[in-house]
């Protein structure tokens, strides 16, 4: 781990000191999601289980080749070997394509052993389940299905795993069982990418009258936050992530790391909250502050946005972009989120002024005056900024509609419309009446 310390300690010196010399402590106290090229080992160590493998494979597919890809594939290979998923193993081997040497080639012997073991286990579970069912002991049947679900999950057969977990529902007797079932179902659904199931199972747990263990509640909030994120409901996603209890720590590592909670929550909040909500729920939120400590760049950019330092805010965003594109949940929302944040920044910049010099604004937003004019034009058309551009002198003037004139105009227009509509209606009624007359009984 010494190597990693030297890599990150350079520009992140200030950050590390605020962490209180946390270099030697467990890696989830170090800033991982930064503007620097992604440190794959550190990133992967934040997760465990299947999501670690899928994330590594995602990075390998999207990082554009080179050392990073090989590193990711190597780690994926090691991780898969610890488990029992032969299909993923074959995938990884074909991707590595012999580039990492003999040690990382196709190990058919291992595959066969694992497959045989799986067959044996399956047979054993089958017979156990059959005997439980004849005995009709609810608890053992539930455990049997659960074990089946776990087994299929380990082998990578997610659909079967999901079906088995759901089957345990009929045999759940206590609230704890139900929660357990729902958590499993949620986990598998997230892995499968079926976020509608995630939402429904989270709701199912919420309907449970018993108060939940805070960690379980935090896990559920993360899960529903992810579901909202996938459905592009950024405001709801932000609210869920911001409510996550900091005690969560790394306990939900098989789905999401606390850095992710901070990043997703911070970015979604920035893109969708208005100013007062941003202050109340993000900046003044003590609980969320613990999460933000883990991703200091996100914390800085939120603060910059709030205090109108747009240039540095956009700079942070730009630097984070490359790494965020490698994130399995966030990558296809990055563009929309960034776009929304930029628009909000533009609107917020112009709000307090009567007139704004476009060249200074263009400097603040690191763009050319003509590009800025086009962006502002789009915002004015959408009625998000009430202003007009003086293209000759390159100044933006705020324009407040004259309420009185607008009211008069609207009234006259309405009068005319009423006139036209009523006359049309009377004519139509007349025509219909004629039809009655024509079709006398």
């Amino acid at each position: 781990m010494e190597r990693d310390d030297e890599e990150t300690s350079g520009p992140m010196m200030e950050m590390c000191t605020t962490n209180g010399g946390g270099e030697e402590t467990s890696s989830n106290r170090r800033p991982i999601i930064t503007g620097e090229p992604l440190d794959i080992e550190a990133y992967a160590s934040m997760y465990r289980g299947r999501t670690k493998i899928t994330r590594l494979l995602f990075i390998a597919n999207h990082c554009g080749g080179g050392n990073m890809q090989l590193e990711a594939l190597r780690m994926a290979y090691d991780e898969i070997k610890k488990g029992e998923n032969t299909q993923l193993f074959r995938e990884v081997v074909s991707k590595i394509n012999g580039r990492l040497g003999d040690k990382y080639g196709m190990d058919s012997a291992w595959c066969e052993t694992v497959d045989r073991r799986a067959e044996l286990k399956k047979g054993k579970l089958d017979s156990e389940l059959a005997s439980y069912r004849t005995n009709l002991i609810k608890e053992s049947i539930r455990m049997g299905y659960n074990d089946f679900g776990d087994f299929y999950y380990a082998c990578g057969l997610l659909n079967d795993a999901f079906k088995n977990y759901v089957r345990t529902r009929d045999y759940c007797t206590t609230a704890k069982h139900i929660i357990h079932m729902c958590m499993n179902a949620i986990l598998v659904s997230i892995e499968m990418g079926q976020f509608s199931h995630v939402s429904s199972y989270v709701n199912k747990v919420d309907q449970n009258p018993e108060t939940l263990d805070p960690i379980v509640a935090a896990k559920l909030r993360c899960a529903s936050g992810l579901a909202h994120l996938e459905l592009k409901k950024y405001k709801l996603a932000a609210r869920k992530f911001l409510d996550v209890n900091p005690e969560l720590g790394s306990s939900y590592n098989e789905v999401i790391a606390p850095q992710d909670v901070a990043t997703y929550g911070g970015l979604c909040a920035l893109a969708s909250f208005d100013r007062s909500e941003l202050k109340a729920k993000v900046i003044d939120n003590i609980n969320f502050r613990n999460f933000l400590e883990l991703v200091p760049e996100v914390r800085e950019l939120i603060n910059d946005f709030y205090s109108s330092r747009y240039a540095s805010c956009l700079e942070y965003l730009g630097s984070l972009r490359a790494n965020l594109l490698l994130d399995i949940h966030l990558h296809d929302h990055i563009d929309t989120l960034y776009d929304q944040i930029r628009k909000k920044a533009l609107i917020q910049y112009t709000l307090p002024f009567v007139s704004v010099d476009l060249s200074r604004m263009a400097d603040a937003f690191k763009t050319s005056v003509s590009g800025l004019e086009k962006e502002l034009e789009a915002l004015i058309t959408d009625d998000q900024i009430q202003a007009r551009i003086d293209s000759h002198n390159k100044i933006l003037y705020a324009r407040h509609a004259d309420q009185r004139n607008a009211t008069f105009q609207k009234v006259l227009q309405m009068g005319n419309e009423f006139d036209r509509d009523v006359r049309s209606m009377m004519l139509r009624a007349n025509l219909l009446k004629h039809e009655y007359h024509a079709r006398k009984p």
Partner: protein
Amino acid sequence: MSSVEDVITSIQGLSSSSRDLSALHDLLKGANESLRANSDLQLSTLDQLDPSKHSLGYLYLLDVLTCGPVPTENASDVVLLIARFINACDAVQIRLASEKFVSLCKRFKDKVLELGDPLRGVAPLLKAVHKVQVSTKRLTSLHPDCLQLCLLAKCYKAGFSVLSDDILEVDQPRDFYLYCYYGGMICIGLKRFQKALELLYNVVTAPMHIVNAIALEAYKKYILVTLIHSGQFSISLPKCASTAAKSNFKTLCTPYIDVGMSYNDGKISELEAVVVANSSDFEKDKNLGLVKQAVSSLYKRNILRLTQKYLTLSLQDIANMVQLANAKDAEMHVLQMIQDGQIHALINQKDGMVRFLEDPEQYKTSEMIEIMDSVIQRTIGLSKNLLAMDESLSCDPLYLGKVGRERQRFDFGDDFDTVPQKFSM
């Protein structure tokens, strides 16, 4: 079998008081058949009668004379005769036999068209419309014919005077469709697009069970006029249009819908491409001129949008954004729009800049107050009309009968007694 002389004497005798007139009317109805067969009746016999005093008789005789085919050398005389009659006749007497009068006028119109001189018929028909009308709110069968003549003669102003009455009662749907369609075309000719839109809207949304050719043509023009007037195109028909219209119009007017959709996108070059591609269809419908007007209105619409966003803009920028050829064209367009009152702006030729101004209307002048007052009065009048219509409808036995019959199917119980039992058939 009464002879022609007998008929003429009775006409001359019985044309004074209303009691006599009704007797005369019955007599004439009886004598109609025999008069037709009688070959003594010539155009010259009509000289014995005075059209203003003996209008009813004159009308009947004229009708008999013109119901058969007329040789072309007489056609011009006949036309002149009828025109004089229409000018001179007495409205009260005419209204007793209004269908005959209307058919006579229609024949008059046909003859005028045959002679190839529609202008001759415009003034007489206008007079005819006014005389036959029972009230200015009621549509007669003559209205569409009159408008058609005005269109063919290109006398738009005359036609427009007919249109300025508010029509509220209609007898025949077909008359109404034709009236609105021709009226719309006249307004387009006068460039009064607001009124044209109203008239065409009425046709398009009229209740109909099957697609009506007149309504279809009207819809095509309606699309183009909406583009010119308000610069927006919505592909869905207004909610009150009949279901037949909603399901069928779109498939039958695809070139126009294409024009509308590409207009919405706002790019001149694409719009022109669409127009060129479909120009044969437009020519067939004789709408090519209107389509060209729509295309030129796209520039106006784009410039109008610019006024919302900019305070000042250089002419060159305007030309670029609206895809005009150069700054000179842009200047011309802006100048035209300022003159038409569509935008308020100042052109600074030295810098090549246009400065857009707010609408200077302050709504504080006495003229404005008068306008508002008149609008208010009009609205009150309309509301009264609407209430009166509602009352008369609820007393109409046919309507009550139909409602009563439908009520049988839904048994709401005795407390829902809006229709007296007598009408449940």
